[in-house]
């Protein structure tokens, strides 16, 4: 008979799974039984005390995205012979799997990611806290001054919860940013001013403006404006 971990400091003995829709596996050397169809991160968050997985781009209200990679854990599906890194916010729980949320390798990877995030957003509270926790003192890289980590939570909340899609991630690679349609400085009629985006933002990069609409983190001069500056013409979206 195996002891299974349920929550907090409690563990109970279960002789038989209550129905077939459960999955049993181990997290940090503890046996757990959870209902099927969830991800590792969801399972861990529902069992306080079993392990602490940091995650910045995850929010229970929207679909997982897998962008920040901080929730990476090690998983073995061959009884511990080999381990691989997976993003726990996306990886489904599977029968018999072994999950380790806080190994040295995992901490090293997270530390590296936090160093990159700290270089991008050196003044953001949550990232500074993470840096302290993982022992990142000063990034070895060139340092920026942004708040937005491009986790896409604002965009997903606006689309999935509100159904408005008033903002979007635009461009790719290092040029990616959150923007309103046509790079408008102020959000137009698409935005209902609900403030969902500001609420889910993990870094506080979005604030609510005086007009009741969110102010997006302006990162760069939009391309359209560069074109306008070159031609000396004034765009309708330009400030002033």
């Amino acid at each position, binding site marked *: 008979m195996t002891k299974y971990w349920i929550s907090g400091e409690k563990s109970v003995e279960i002789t038989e799974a209550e129905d077939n829709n459960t999955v049993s596996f181990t997290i940090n050397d503890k046996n757990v039984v959870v209902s099927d169809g969830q991800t590792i991160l969801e399972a861990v968050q529902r069992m306080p005390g079993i392990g602490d997985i940091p995650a910045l781009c995850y929010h229970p209200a929207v679909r997982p*995205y*897998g*962008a*920040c*990679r*901080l929730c*990476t854990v090690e998983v073995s599906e061959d009884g511990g012979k080999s381990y691989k*890194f*997976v*993003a726990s916010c*996306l*990886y*489904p729980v599977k029968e018999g799997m072994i999950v380790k949320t806080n190994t040295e*390798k995992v901490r090293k*990877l997270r530390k*590296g*990611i936090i160093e*990159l*995030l700290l*270089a*991008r957003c050196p003044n953001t509270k949550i990232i500074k806290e993470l840096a302290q926790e993982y022992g990142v003192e000063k990034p*070895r*890289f*060139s340092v920026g001054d942004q708040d937005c*980590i*491009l986790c*896409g939570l604002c965009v997903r909340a606006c689309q999935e919860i509100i159904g408005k899609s008033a903002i*979007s*991630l635009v*461009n*790719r*690679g*290092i*040029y*990616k940013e959150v923007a309103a349609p046509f790079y408008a400085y102020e959000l137009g009629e698409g935005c209902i001013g609900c403030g969902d985006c500001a609420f889910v933002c993990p870094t506080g990069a979005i604030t609510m403006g005086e007009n009741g609409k969110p102010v997006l983190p302006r990162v760069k001069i939009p391309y359209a404006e560069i074109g306008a500056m070159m031609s000396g013409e004034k765009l309708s979206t330009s400030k002033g």
Partner: protein
Amino acid sequence: MVEQVKKLLDKKLKSVEELEKLRKSILNNQDTSRITVSVCGGTGCRASGAEAVVEAFAEEIEKRELQVKIDFKETGCHGFCERGPVVVIGPKKIFYQHVQSEDVPEIINETVLQGKVVKRLLYTDPATSEEITYESDVPFYNRQTRLILGANGEIDPTDIEQYIAAGGYSALSKALFQMNPDKIVNEITQSGLRGRGGGGFPTGRKWQSCRTSEGDIKYVLCNADEGDPGAYQDRSILEGNPHSVIEGMIIGAYAIGAHRGYIYVRNEYPLAVEHARIALDQAIDYGFLGENILGSGFDFKVTINKGGGAFVCGESSALIASLEGKIGEPKSKYVHMSEKGLWDKPSLLNNVKTWANVPLIINKGAEWYSKIGTAGSKGTMIFSLVGKINNSGLVEVPMGITLREMIYDIGGGIPNGKKFKAVQTGGPSGGCIPEEFLDTPVDFDELTKLGSMMGSGGMIIMDEDTCMVDVARYFINFLKGESCGKCVPCREGLAKMSDILNRITHGEGKPEDLDTMMDLAEILSAGALCALGRTAANPVISTLKYFKDEYMAHINDKKCPAGVCRELIQYNIDPEKCTGCGLCARACSMNAISGEKKEPHVINQNVCIKCGVCYDSCKFGAVIKQ
């Protein structure tokens, strides 16, 4: 009346018998006494003027009413792009290179009408200085096994009947009527075919899992979003022989039970898009696509989807997102595409080259196919041989050929007697392989062992004048802009890596930079979301592994040994060699060079922008790059 006309115009083939009847009648109607003239209309030859040559031939033939004598066609890429525009005169395949429109009347007069060879248009082997008349004797061709590319030079891609005459769609009729889906999947599995798009995943296994996936709706997808710098084999197949890809897709669809297919092709490949579209229309007219294909009861439709030019959309999950109309960002593949792909339905995605292999395997059998290649990699692979190489072009070789054979025997070695330095394989996230591994057999596993990869078959040759730090900088720079920007390791990690490499090439590198870059490489390979990010550090890892001394020279001595990185070089004039001719001074756009006539000149380092014009213009080798 209308009905009768409709019936006459209806080309739809309703059975295998009708297909074979059509094939026979095309072959019977071919006038074998006509001399075939095929002009390469591939992108490489077009860039060097093939369209004017095609026009000149068409005009000349019409003017002189030679239509009955000459079977003229503009074909797909012949592969030998270095020597374009290429013209091949049948039946013995006399091979003319660098043909211009002015040469056309002479070719018609001499070769076509009198059977004489125009010597000045022949290829001369640089090694033996021998003039070579026939295509099959050209070393570039006779070392190749052109199973896929061979037909490119034979058929007009815009004419389905030429494909049928060459045996086209016989694999489809075999698959539909002599095999069942299980047998087809089995045949592909037995052949040992592996995905040609980069991953090298066993194709049969992919088909099998898609076949057994539950669902009424399944999709078949063709990945023609080729974006590697210097690679153009998918483009050339789609331009030159689109029906082979379509035939492969129909067979795949029948095998897994799909009724809809998509070709995702780059919008920057207008000719490939056009030829694929023509081919699809013709395939519908002839009953190879649509309902009840060849009377088998099987339905299949293919749609072309043009990509917007993002490199990352060649990644399978990003391609699917793009097809669905979403932002082209990869997703995690913890649930496989064979279960949940396009619109969450089971989907089978293969590269253009993989699809083109399918009819071949069905026709000739898995046993025949699996005899070609190495133990782990079967069949042929098409490489685009580019960079510092004499014979740049597309080459198709059996897996297992050595890099040396490829570069020296087929590629003709390095131009201008320079020394080989490295070959970069597998696209931007591949690695650089140095000379000591030139005898490695090329296949999926061997290249991976060397820290590079097969990728889509790009092969960039570099000579002694290439700075390996600069190469790493170039590829990381490319990837930093072409990453989707979704996950932190890839977006931020590549940006920082690019910063460091820029600093090193500007002479501002620090010794600890190398460790920092290796740390970043580890974060990328362990933490990135998709294969682009996980392999993105390969250019850095492989150059650091094989060319660490060059990094050290940049960082410690502030020197670029290959003389590429501008901030680290200086041009000077050797007063012993300078004759004072003044050529360099006139060429210098900055007026940085001064000196009396017939006296040694001097470069003013404060004004010099290190463009190298003086170095290139000096006839006496007096300008020194340091």
